[in-house]
């Protein structure tokens, strides 16, 4: 009809975690989505327009193993498929692990939605020498099957065109799977009972789910038929519960398909991934290897390569200048100062731009090289498949104090940014474990805290090799100790949740993907510096360069900053931090501004300690800071900022995920008090051991340490009660 708009089409991407779904999504839509190798990266669905087809939307569903209702991802994916009814499902399957992947496929084909299958990682399959007969697979399954390699871009166009064609035709495949005759008879009876409410094409799926006693599906129906007799008879007949019956039937069907379509070369031999895992996930070596790897990551990013690059940025680009092919390029402060003077700009405005904006933003941007190198390493560890193992490795340790490795996944994500880390806690089914994970996720240093780590390591410890890695391990220890202590309280007590995860094969990531991932995170950091930190720097500059002198409110000279509005505010709370070794107003203010964005801590120091002033005598760019704070006080300051309440964005995420005001304030209070006590202990013990001083602060540190040790080692009364109860029940 003339003028009629083309109907828009929705195609859902469904598949197991780590099957290459997001890589395919990127290839189909052109968006740059982050590719991770562990469950929980995609908690909510993502959408994008198919390249070349403005009317076609691709929806990337969470990676799931089945359409059962046990995890949030499964429920989210299933609800989308049932309620929003996409025009087609593009089921992506890992060709190197096809047997496990087909379980979901058999369920997708029961939904009454047209399905096309894309068998991914064909390039990897070819290398292993295994054979997969695509045409035969298609015949057996009753749907179109296309072989692709999402990473190499092979078959993408073909699968996209076929998916669009299928969606437009709305042709549902000739589904082949039939269960045992006894099961089929029961299913037919159930379908008859629900025919009034459920449309024909969905009836089989609903019948199977009702037979499996799926409560979430039953909750979606207006009238749930009574199936107790049918279920009881079938269970007696087949001597198993209905859910297991259906599961076994599916796997029998899958085995029959695999038998005729897939030929594995070198059955029984260990793959390269298996051989690597024998070492990297070894019972005794795994944790030390993980510690060594993270040590190296932080050592190289912050202390060696990162420092060279950051020194160039801080002392060259944001300092006196740097050499480019023998020519001296003046640094930004020099250029800006010269430009502003030449144009006749007023002194106060020059001060705002140089000391405020260049000082604040420049101080943060100076650490971009270190951040980029760290992001590159983290991207490599994620993309190659190692990070997926870390959750598995940590599970053994976490289980000792009642958490599971699934709680470590948000913490791994939180090493980039705390916000998605906190969001990823949604994958944890246990409410108390989820709350504990939310509370402790931000203990792991996020990208925004890296400038603080780098600043303290560089300015106060002369780039000592141990400072940056120790910051990471302080976070890990804080998580472990918090877990042990909290699990002994009634609020968080209970058995650890079961943790099952698939370990994807190791593979060498492409340079393109690594650089893209590094740049995406780096760019967001730079953009943040140019927006929120720039605005914060201006506010901080005004508050630090304006104040009351002799009853008069005016702009202050450099030596009068102690009279500023900021100093006044800072001084009102700085006394709280005296026991921590940094009771000056500058440090107190810097810690507070860190609530807006953690990078602001560095930005604030940059403004207050004259980062933009290029010293004529050639002293180090952070020399003023180094002269006003001892190394021990600096480390205490670092520990406090690493562990205390995170930035407002992460606080907001905690509030949303806790969904309870009391729990929210408990979380923030716990983090801040924990940070305060640990920093106090670090400083006071340090003073005792290095200077031999013993003050009331030292006594407080002693008491806190003893309390801490007691909380860690005390037996859990309810735990032993539950143990006795279990023993009595067994008798």
């Amino acid at each position, binding site marked *: 009809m003339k003028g009629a708009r083309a109907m828009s089409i929705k195609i859902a991407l469904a598949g197991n975690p780590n099957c290459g779904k997001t890589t395919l999504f990127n290839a189909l839509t052109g968006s740059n989505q982050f590719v991770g190798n562990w469950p929980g990266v*995609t908690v*909510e669905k993502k959408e994008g327009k198919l390249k070349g087809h403005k009317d076609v939307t691709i929806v990337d569903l969470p990676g799931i193993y089945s359409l059962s209702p046990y995890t949030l991802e499964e429920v989210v994916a299933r609800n989308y498929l049932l309620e929003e009814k996409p025009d087609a499902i593009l089921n992506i399957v890992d060709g190197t692990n096809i047997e496990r992947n087909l379980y979901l496929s058999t369920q997708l084909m029961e939904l009454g939605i047209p399905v096309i299958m894309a068998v991914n990682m064909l390039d990897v399959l070819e290398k292993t020498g295994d054979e997969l007969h695509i045409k035969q697979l298609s015949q057996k399954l009753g749907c179109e099957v296309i072989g692709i390699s999402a990473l190499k871009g092979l078959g993408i166009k073909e699968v996209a065109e076929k998916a669009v064609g299928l969606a437009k035709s709305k042709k549902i495949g000739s589904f082949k799977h039939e269960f045992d005759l006894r099961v089929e008879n029961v299913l037919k009876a159930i379908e008859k009972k629900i025919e009034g409410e459920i449309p024909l094409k969905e009836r089989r799926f609903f019948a199977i789910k009702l037979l499996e006693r799926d409560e979430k599906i039953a909750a979606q129906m207006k009238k749930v038929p009574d199936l107790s007799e049918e279920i009881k008879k079938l269970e007696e007949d087949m001597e198993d519960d209905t859910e297991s019956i259906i599961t076994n039937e599916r796997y029998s069907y899958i085995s029959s398909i695999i038998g005729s379509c897939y030929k594995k070369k070198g059955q029984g031999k260990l793959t390269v991934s298996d051989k690597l895992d024998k070492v990297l996930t070894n019972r005794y070596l795994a944790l030390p290897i993980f510690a060594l790897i993270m040590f190296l990551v932080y050592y190289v990013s912050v202390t060696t390569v990162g420092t060279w690059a950051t020194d160039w940025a801080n002392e060259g680009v944001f300092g006196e200048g740097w050499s480019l092919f023998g020519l001296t390029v003046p640094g930004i402060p020099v250029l800006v100062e010269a430009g502003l003077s030449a144009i006749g700009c007023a002194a106060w*405005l020059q001060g705002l731009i140089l000391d405020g904006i260049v000082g604040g933003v420049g101080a943060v941007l100076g650490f971009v090289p270190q951040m980029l190198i760290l992001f590159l390493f983290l991207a490599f560890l994620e993309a190659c498949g190692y990070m997926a193992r870390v959750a598995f490795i940590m599970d053994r340790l976490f289980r000792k104090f009642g958490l599971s490795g699934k709680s470590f996944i948000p913490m791994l994500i939180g090493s980039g940014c705390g916000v998605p880390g906190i*969001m990823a806690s949604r994958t944890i089914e246990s409410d108390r474990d989820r709350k504990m994970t939310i509370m402790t996720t931000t203990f792991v240093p996020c990208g925004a805290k890296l400038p603080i780590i780098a600043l303290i390591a560089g300015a106060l410890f002369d780039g000592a090799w141990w400072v940056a890695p120790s910051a990471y391990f302080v976070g890990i220890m804080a998580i472990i100790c918090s877990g042990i202590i909290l699990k002994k309280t009634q609020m968080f007590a209970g058995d650890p949740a079961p943790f099952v995860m698939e370990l994807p094969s190791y593979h060498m990531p492409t340079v393109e993907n690594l650089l893209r991932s590094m740049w995406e995170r780096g760019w967001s950091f730079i953009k*943040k510096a140019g927006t*929120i930190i*720039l605005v914060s720097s201006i506010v901080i500059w005004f508050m630090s360069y304006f104040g009351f002198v002799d009853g008069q409110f005016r702009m202050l000279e450099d030596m009068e900053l102690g009279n500023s509005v900021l100093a006044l505010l800072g001084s009102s709370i700085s006394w709280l931090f005296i026991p921590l070794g940094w009771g000056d107003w500058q440090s107190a203010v810097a810690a507070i501004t860190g609530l807006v964005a953690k990078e602001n801590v560095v930005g604030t120091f940059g403004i207050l300690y004259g980062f933009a002033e290029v010293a004529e005598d050639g002293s180090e760019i952070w020399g003023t800071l180094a002269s006003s704070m001892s190394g021990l006080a600096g480390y205490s300051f670092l520990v406090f900022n690493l562990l205390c309440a995170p930035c407002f*964005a992460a606080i907001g995420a905690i509030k949303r995920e806790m969904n309870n005001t009391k729990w929210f304030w408990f979380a923030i209070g716990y983090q801040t008090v924990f940070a305060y006590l640990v920093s106090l202990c670090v400083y006071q013990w340090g003073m005792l051991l290095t200077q031999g001083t013993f003050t009331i602060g030292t006594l407080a540190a002693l008491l806190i340490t003893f309390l801490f040790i007691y909380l860690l080692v005390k037996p859990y009364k309810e735990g032993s009660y539950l143990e006795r109860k279990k023993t009595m029940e067994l008798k």
Partner: protein
Amino acid sequence: MGTFIVGSILLILVGSIIKSLIKDKKQGKSIQCGDACKNCSGHCHVK
């Protein structure tokens, strides 16, 4: 004159930054994360 020019440029720059932060906030985006929504697994509800 120089002060006026530099001041005006600065005001326009800061004004546009604040405007974009407010626009992001109204769209449900976080103003603090640097707009790396794709890495964020649904923190923001971009329309």
